[in-house]
């Protein structure tokens, strides 16, 4: 499996006696766009939290390009080339759009360079700004952005980090129809030259943009495969139709 970028084996996470993940195996290949779905409490976000160092697993291993990630601190994992977004977007409202992007692009800078003022825009930042299409708002504080724009800015910040693996946690939650389309296009564009894992509830969005899907249920992997296979799987239908239909809508 030389092209596997992320390899998760036997992952178990326990919160105060509640088992959130129970022996999850997952492999994401280089260049892949993978969707992670499942009803509430299935452990999707927990899985991302473990990969990015926010949560410590009780058992199991997470290897990224051959490096073990468990036990490393969050910023170290980012420096290895993994970036993520959060369900509720966190951009720095007092900083301008460009400053937000510049910050994201800058963690490789040495300390002395940090002490200088930013002049203009680096290519990296300009490219990210172009990708997310917020050029008009470049010098406005992020606090004035709409919800959708903030999500895009977050994605832009992620791109500006130049990670090898992007983890997006519900990028279209709370978006209007137009914004979803725009985000979908953005996602497709990014997936062209990045490895991306998307956690999503929205089945419609899933059908339009996903190819490979992993379904989690009660802390375990239920099904894995392409969209059609997964949708037709009776177990998935049971899980979703039984209780989760309204959540998925």
């Amino acid at each position, binding site marked *: 499996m030389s092209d596997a970028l992320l390899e998760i084996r036997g992952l178990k996470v326990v919160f105060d006696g509640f088992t959130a993940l129970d022996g999850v195996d997952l492999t994401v290949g280089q260049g892949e766009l993978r969707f992670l779905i499942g009803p509430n409490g299935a452990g999707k976000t927990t899985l991302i939290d473990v990969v*990015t160092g926010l949560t410590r697993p009780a058992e199991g291993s997470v290897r990224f390009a051959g490096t073990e990630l468990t036990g490393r*601190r*969050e*910023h170290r994992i*980012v*420096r290895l080339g993994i*970036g*993520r977004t*959060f369900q509720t977007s*966190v951009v*720095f*409202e*007092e*900083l301008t759009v460009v*400053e937000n992007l*510049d*910050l*994201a692009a*800058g*963690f*490789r*800078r040495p*300390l002395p*360079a*940090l*002490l*200088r*003022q*930013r002049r203009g825009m680096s290519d990296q930042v300009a490219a990210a700004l172009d990708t997310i299409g917020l050029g008009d708002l470049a010098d*406005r*504080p*992020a*606090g*004035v952005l709409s919800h959708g724009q903030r999500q895009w800015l977050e994605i832009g*910040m992620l791109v500006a*980090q130049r990670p090898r693996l992007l983890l997006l946690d519900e990028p279209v939650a709370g978006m209007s129809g137009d914004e979803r389309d725009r985000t979908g296009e953005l996602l497709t564009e990014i997936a062209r030259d990045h490895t991306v894992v998307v956690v999503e509830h929205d089945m419609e969005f899933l059908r339009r943009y996903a190819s490979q899907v992993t379904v989690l249920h009660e802390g375990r992997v239920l099904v894995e495969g392409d969209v059609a296979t997964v949708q037709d799987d009776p177990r998935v239908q049971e899980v979703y139709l039984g209780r989760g239909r309204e959540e998925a809508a």
Partner: protein
Amino acid sequence: MSARLRGHAPFAAVAVLLLVVAPLALPAFRLDELAKYLCFAIAALGIGLAWGQGGMLTLGQGVFFGLGGYATAMYLKLHDAGGDLPDFMVWSGVEELPALWRPFGAAGFALAAVVAVPVAVVLGALVFRQRVRGAYFAILTQALAAAFVILLVGQQGLTGGTNGLTNFYDVFGRDPEAEGTQRTLYFVTAGVLGALYLGARQLVRSRFGRLLVAVRDGEDRVRFLGYNPATVKTVTFAVSAGMAGLAGALFVPVVGIISPSLLGVVPSLELVVAVAVGGRYALAGAVLGAIVMNYAKTSFSEQWAGGWLYLEGALFVLVMTLAPRGAAGLYEQARDALARRRGTPAPAARPREAAT
């Protein structure tokens, strides 16, 4: 270009006021008082940086102020004693110069402000690495100030106890009570304040400054941008401590005394109050807050002693409830309102009041 010039005009105006007008208009002892306020303003600048920009509410700046102050005072004492024991050690029954004092004989002044920095680095590294923050950090620094005072007071032979260190006869070759010396010290203090202000402003505008604001508003998010917030905070905390140390180092020759009562919980809090009233998000607000509040305290207690506590308390409650961004924030609001009436677009987005 003209905008940049305009940006510097207020600074120049204040510089002229402090360096030319005040020395000409004020009698010597008022100038000496102003010099004292400027020392507090230097410490306040550090708090503005750590708290306003970095979100670290440090209630123990008195500790660093004290480290700087005691270092200078120890140097001056040794210098006065000229090879003998400092006077207070004689009363306290100390017979031989303690080892702790020896280094301060020579390069005392150079050491003065520097002492605070490594202490802050060690403390910051320990505390921030473990993600102790917000109210926890505030309470911890407050307890540190309390413990530091107890320690200082308990070691009378080393520190002069509650009396502190005072009675210096010779400050760098000059009589500290002479008006000429006081004038010189005033200029030195004002100069240091100006330089530190410009330095701090540069820091705030730099990428590091942007990063610091990001850490303040979303420490955990910053971690996922690949930075270690603990490092950013430790560096800022150390810079802020260094400023407090320098303030203490200048305070000693200006006022002629350093004692534990200047470093405890209450004086540390009063510095923070001054910053809050002046405007925590603006460095200039912090500086001016310290000057105005200390001036008000002096002149108010000359008129109605008990009333100062009411005034300070009430002012504080009002500022926190009605204008949490302090005087500087009010000024900005007024300016924006004016700009809106003239039809120019107002710069949007104020910093949110940081949660934790």
